[in-house]
C-alpha cells in the first residue's frame, strides 16, 4: 500500500485519453486494431448506402448501427475510454453527455414530427387567411 502518488493514481483514476502504461508494441497494436476496425466499419457503411443487395428500408437502421459501432471503436481504441475501475469518472461523464444528446436529438425529432403530423396543410392555412 505504500505506493507513490503516481502509482496510486494509476490504481484509482486515469485521465481521459491516457491508457495504462504499456509497452510501445502493445500501444501500437491498440491503435492499429482501432484503425483496422474503423476502416472496416466505414467501408461497410459506404457499401451499404449504395447497394441494392439488401432490403432497402433496413439501410437507414444499418447505417445508424454501423455509426454507433464505429464511435464505440474510436472511444475504446483512440480515446481509451474503458470499463475499468480507473475510468469510472470518464465513463459517467460520457454517459451524461450521451443522455443529453439523446434527449436533444430524439426530443426534437419527436416533437417536430408530431407538429408536422397535426398541422393543417400549408395551402389550407393560406386559404383561411384570405
Amino acid at each position: 500500500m505504500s505506493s507513490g502518488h503516481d502509482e496510486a493514481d494509476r490504481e484509482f483514476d486515469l485521465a481521459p485519453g491516457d491508457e495504462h502504461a504499456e509497452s510501445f508494441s502493445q500501444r501500437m497494436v491498440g491503435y492499429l486494431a482501432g484503425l483496422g476496425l474503423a476502416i472496416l466499419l466505414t467501408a461497410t457503411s459506404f457499401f451499404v448506402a449504395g447497394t441494392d443487395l439488401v432490403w432497402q428500408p433496413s439501410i437507414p437502421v444499418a447505417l445508424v448501427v454501423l455509426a454507433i459501432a464505429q464511435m464505440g471503436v474510436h472511444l475504446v481504441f483512440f480515446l481509451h475510454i474503458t470499463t475499468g475501475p480507473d475510468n469510472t469518472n470518464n465513463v459517467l461523464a460520457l454517459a451524461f453527455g450521451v443522455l443529453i444528446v439523446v434527449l436533444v436529438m430524439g426530443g426534437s425529432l419527436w416533437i417536430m414530427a408530431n407538429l408536422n403530423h397535426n398541422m393543417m396543410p400549408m395551402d389550407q392555412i393560406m386559404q383561411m387567411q384570405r
Partner: protein
Amino acid sequence: MSSVAATPASDPHALHGAGHRAGLDAGWSGPPSKRIITGYGFWIFILSDIVMFSAFFATYAVLHGQTAGGPSGHDLFDLRNVAIETALLLASSFTCGLASIAADLRSAIWFQLAMAVTCILGLGFLGLEGHEFTALVARGAGPTRSAFLSSFFTLVGCHGLHVSAGILWLLTMMAQVFAKGFRPDIQRRILCFALFWHALDIIWIAVFTIVYLLGSAA
C-alpha cells in the same frame, strides 16, 4: 499504510489544498495529479461541444426535407469526395495517436513527424471541404437557398471550423515542443489536443452517416 499523503513534487502546478487531510482516511491516496484534473476538465468541455453539435444535428434532421423546391441532398452530394474526406480524417486520427505515443516516449523527432503528417491530412480534409462548399455556392446551392442547405452549411461548416482550430492548435503544439521540450504542462496540452482531434473524428462519423449517407439516400 503510511506515506500515502505524499504529493507529487515533480509538478509545481499540482493542487495542494486538501493534502493534509490524507491521514484521516487510509483509503484516500491524495489529490489526483494535475494531468488527471486537466484531462477530465477538457473531457467535460468535449462532451459539452458534442451536445452543441447534437443541436445542429437535430436541426439538420428536422429540416433536411425542406428544400423549398431547390436541390436535395441526393442531387448535391458526391459520396466519392466524402469517402476521401473520411479516409483523410481517419488517417489523421491514427497519426495523432502515434504522436501521443511519441510524446510519452519523449521522442521529439517522431512526435514532430507524426504531427506534421496529421497536419497535412487535416489540411487535405479542409481543402476538399472548401472545394465542395465553393462548388455548391457556385451552382446556386448556397446556405441561403433553402432551410435544408442552411442547416447543412451550419453543421458541416461548424465541424470544419473545429478542424481549422485544431490545426492551429496542432501547429502551436509542434512549436511548443520544439521550443520548450516535453515539460509536464506541455504534455498535458498534448493530451488535450489528442482528445480534441479524436473527438472531431467521432463527430465526423455522425456527419458522414447522417448528413451524407442518409441524406443522399432520401
